[in-house]
């Protein structure tokens, strides 16, 4: 039992290290870090707006709608867990963009850091090419009526009001 504890402690501490290999990263469920809510910060939120035909885009709204079957969600919660998976994708996009910006800062050496002002994704292949970006676009598409043009944005918590972090171009549904 003691040997098992030593191994597990070592692996749990190592689990905090980032791995560059996508293959190894996808196996990280085998090495949990167990740090639930260790830092409570607000989450980025995904908002969408849409327009039918050539009309104006409507108001922004959150993709988090009221979910069904809440009384039994302690037992069976497919839509709640899917929504959490969608949120993980949004969190991952913000993380991937931060890494992109950090990489650019390393390149030009001005060390500005990430997240200063809203980034517009349109026309930036490095952003649009991210898997996370396409997944977020698909999440947004799943929350607008079929056949409509739509646009999405990720907002991050800030005082006095949430700030735009990334705004997509207008997408044909």
């Amino acid at each position, binding site marked *: 039992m003691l040997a098992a504890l030593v191994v597990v402690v070592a692996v749990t501490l190592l689990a905090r290290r980032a791995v560059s290999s996508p293959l190894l990263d996808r196996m*990280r469920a085998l090495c949990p870090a167990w740090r639930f809510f260790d830092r*409570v910060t607000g989450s980025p939120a995904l908002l969408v707006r849409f327009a039918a035909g050539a009309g104006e885009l409507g108001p922004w709204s959150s993709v988090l709608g009221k979910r069904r079957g809440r009384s039994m969600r302690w037992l069976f919660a497919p839509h709640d867990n899917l929504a959490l998976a969608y949120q993980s994708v949004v969190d991952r996009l913000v993380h991937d963009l931060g890494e992109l910006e950090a990489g650019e800062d390393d390149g030009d050496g001005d060390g500005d850091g990430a997240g200063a002002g809203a980034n517009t994704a349109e026309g930036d292949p490095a952003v649009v090419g991210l898997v996370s970006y396409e997944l977020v676009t698909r999440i947004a598409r799943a929350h607008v009526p079929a056949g409509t043009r739509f646009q999405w944005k990720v907002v991050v918590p800030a005082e006095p009001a949430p700030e735009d972090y990334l705004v997509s171009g207008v997408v044909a549904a």
Partner: protein
Amino acid sequence: MTLAVAVDWMARLAGVAAAIAALELLCVRDALADHGVFAWRVLGRELAGAPRAIRVLADTVLGHRGMCSVLVLQLGAALALPCTSHPAPPWIAFAAVLLTAFRFRGTYNGGSDSMLLIVTLAVALARTAPDSEVARGGLAYAAAQLVLSYFVSGVAKLRDRAWRSGRAVPRVLALPQYQVSDRVRAALTRPVLARLATWSMLAFECGFPLALADATTCWALMAIGACFHLANAIVFGLNRFLWAWIAAYPALLYWSR
């Protein structure tokens, strides 16, 4: 609790956890289709640099049809877990949960995926080599991970001033993705209740290693743990954590004797 009884109970509870996980994903399988959010042709792009054999295997197994087959296999293995001591069901459940996590870029439901992997692995080892050091090692690993899951989480929170002051609980309750009811949020926004809830939880998490001291303490802490996870399932919708964690409890009870 004997080794065999502990393994049987872990198998029953892991069967529930794995069945719920498979059924939930089958309910939302449209999201895994080629037109869905989690289409494999998008998720699989990150494996472009992987060896060809792995890419071909992944495309076959993790596409929509393949993934639905994996989930059906997982469901079948989960239902078989309490009914037979054959090692195949836990190994199939372990492989299916791992494939699902792999498909979703590491995890679909966070820590519950990890704990379910740990429990199914422990059961698989115990049923492959019954009443052996391998079986005891598997349960030791599960018990160790269970203890660490609470202890590390508690210590990590203790280091944050927001948790120590009781301000973190209202913030967590306000996170929109959990859709916590207004009544619960109102109750736990009150400073006294927020601090009480916070310090009760921290005391439980940081004190959990005491479960190894003796069986009585173990039972008491497991009862508190089950209530903690049930509360999280009701308030936050974190249902999978309830079943995955209590599936590991028999391993801890075995080692606390």
